[in-house]
């Protein structure tokens, strides 16, 4: 059974080796080369794909929890959703969570993921005290900001290329409710969207859904959702609302017309105002639909996510949104977010500025469009998010990540480059 990633593209044959214990893993590492760890396959492109996959999902034990400090120790295959199932009823939540809870701790560290509170709390690594990782020679080392600090900063955001994360110590945060008080603001153009972000900057969580097909005076109109945890003491588990997409949609079903209709409807339906919603509705609306990635059909899809520095964001975004609207290539989801300061990790994606993420069906002509967008992103000093990427060329990638040579050097010195690589790492030569 070959494994794919979330975008269902590319579909390549691979050999999957399931985790059976530290000794087994060390033996596997000594006998093979070109391996890549795989968590729950929620990265969109080829970050976790290769010929030999080290499948870590069933390495999923909780080890300890300190209810004074909120420090949880667990194995790297534990899903964020499992942590929420166990700890929300006890009044704890993840400090940082991406827009899906179906990712592993290993994947969260390796992509140094971020969420709607990046402008306040930063990336996932902010809640990581330390982790244990198996290196290219099968040794297990402890990494923190004090111990093996280089390995810590290379591994957070290091896309599985610095060894196999085995377990981690992460801090949870106290909550007094599973609910979020959410404010929705509807804006009419890009200027208003930026103003809304500034206005709601004090809110711990914020994100905007942009209508990418709106043109002219409506360019950049959005629904901004901002919020914070309620204080109502309600910690009861959420009802299970899962729905299935039973098969791959025929790929013609998602044409420009249907996307445009969807976008217009979604925008029209959005109402200004305040509402109380539970954490699943606020943080993970897409998780309610199993396999929603199948609506893009058998050919799969990709997500283009870039970030631009703050002072160049408005101009750059305006240009890029125009290009996309003119191309008519649809995107169901286009998510805009204001980010806080960059951290010290060598390959972490976030920097202070605005990031846009859009989904595209894989089709003829798409990559040409994306190469054009790349050029704008680089012109304005931005970069591309590896965990969503499936096609970025080496030169484009490099220009966005100034610490890349340090990362390459560490891989060379520790022998990691001879043991661990993904389709992506070979493409961008890291």
């Amino acid at each position, binding site marked *: 059974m070959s494994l794919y990633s979330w975008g269902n593209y590319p579909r390549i044959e691979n050999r999957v080796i399931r985790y059976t214990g530290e000794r087994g893993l060390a033996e596997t590492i000594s006998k093979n080369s070109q391996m890549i760890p795989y968590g729950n396959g929620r990265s969109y492109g080829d970050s976790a794909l290769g010929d030999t996959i080290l499948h870590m999902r069933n390495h999923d034990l*909780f*080890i300890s929890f300190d209810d004074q400090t909120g420090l949880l120790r667990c194995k790297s295959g534990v899903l964020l959703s499992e942590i929420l199932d*166990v700890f929300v009823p006890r009044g704890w939540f993840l400090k940082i969570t991406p827009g899906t809870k179906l990712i592993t701790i290993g994947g969260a560290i390796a992509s140094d993921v971020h969420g709607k509170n990046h402008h306040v709390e930063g990336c996932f690594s902010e809640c990581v005290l330390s982790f244990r990782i198996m290196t290219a020679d099968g040794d297990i080392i402890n990494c923190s900001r004090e111990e093996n600090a280089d390995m810590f900063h290379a591994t957070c955001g290091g896309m599985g290329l610095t060894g196999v994360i085995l377990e981690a110590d992460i801090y949870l945060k106290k909550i007094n409710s599973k609910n979020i008080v959410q404010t929705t603001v509807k804006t009419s153009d890009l200027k208003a969207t930026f103003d809304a972000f500034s206005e709601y900057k004090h809110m711990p969580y914020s994100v905007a859904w942009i209508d990418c097909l709106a043109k002219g005076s409506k360019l950049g109109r959005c629904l901004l959702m901002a919020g914070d945890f309620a204080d109502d003491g309600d910690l009861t588990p959420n009802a299970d609302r899962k729905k299935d997409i039973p098969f791959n949609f025929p790929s013609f079903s998602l044409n420009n017309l249907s996307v445009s209709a969807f976008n217009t409807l979604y925008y029209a339906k959005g109402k200004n105002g305040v509402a109380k919603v539970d954490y699943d509705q606020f943080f993970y609306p897409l998780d309610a639909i199993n396999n929603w990635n199948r609506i893009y059909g058998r050919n799969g899809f990709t997500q283009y996510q870039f970030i631009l520095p703050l002072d160049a964001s408005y101009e750059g975004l305006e240009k890029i949104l125009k290009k996309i609207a003119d191309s008519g290539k649809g995107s169901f989801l286009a998510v805009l977010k204001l980010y806080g300061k960059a951290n010290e990790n060598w390959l972490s994606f976030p920097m202070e500025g605005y990031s846009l993420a859009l989904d595209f069906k894989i089709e003829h002509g798409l990559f040409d469009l994306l190469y054009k967008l790349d050029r704008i992103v680089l012109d304005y000093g931005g970069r591309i998010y590896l965990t969503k990427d499936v096609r970025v060329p080496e030169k484009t990638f490099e220009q966005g990540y100034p610490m890349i040579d340090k990362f390459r050097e560490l891989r060379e010195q520790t022998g990691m480059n001879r043991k661990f690589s993904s389709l992506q790492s070979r493409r961008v030569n890291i």
Partner: protein
Amino acid sequence: MSYILILGAKSDMAKAVARVYASHGYDLYLACRNTAELDEQIKDIDVRYSRKAVPVEMDITATETHAAIYGALDPKPEGVISVVGYLGDQKTAEKDFSEADRIMRTNYAGPVSMLNLAANDMESRKSGFIIGISSVAGDRGRKSNYIYGSAKAGFSEYLSGLRNRLFTAGVHVMTVKPGFVDTKMTAGMDLPKKLTAQPSEVAEDIYSAWSKGKNVIYTKKRWRLIMLIIRHIPEFMFKKTSI
């Protein structure tokens, strides 16, 4: 709180079953060989569900030890779930009886020995339940694994008889027939994705069928139809197939 005794507790499937029952408030007796290896699993149950998990050293083929093992459990378990099994190697088992013997004792004789003890206890208590993990392989003998298959067939029929016997005592007996499951047993095999269940799915199926008082379940559910068809292929045709 009441205890569930799980036989073969280290398997991926048992781990998943243990979690589901612990999440519904049960404490656990985890029976297997080399219980020292259970330490991390026991901590996991404690951190996740604040439930107790007690290791019980047991070799399912060492039937002479079973009475003492069951006798020592205090309190007695409310339910017993037998997950132990051994696929073995069919080709070896054809030539070397010791392999065939091990397959039969792990999948049939051993579980019968432990479940007899539990059944007698529950019958006299007039309460409790027994769940046995058998296999679709027991629904029809095939050349690729009929030693394992026949042992599972025996186990399925044992559970059927036991269900019949314990009905009047109010003891629920449920037979579980998984198709393909993605576990250590099938690691490296090229299984069809659509017919292969994850251990957590099997565990959820077991819990939900058990709460509804079901007798025999297939998991994934589509295996019921597949096995219905396979069981109905006439023998003169079936003997020529390689499925």
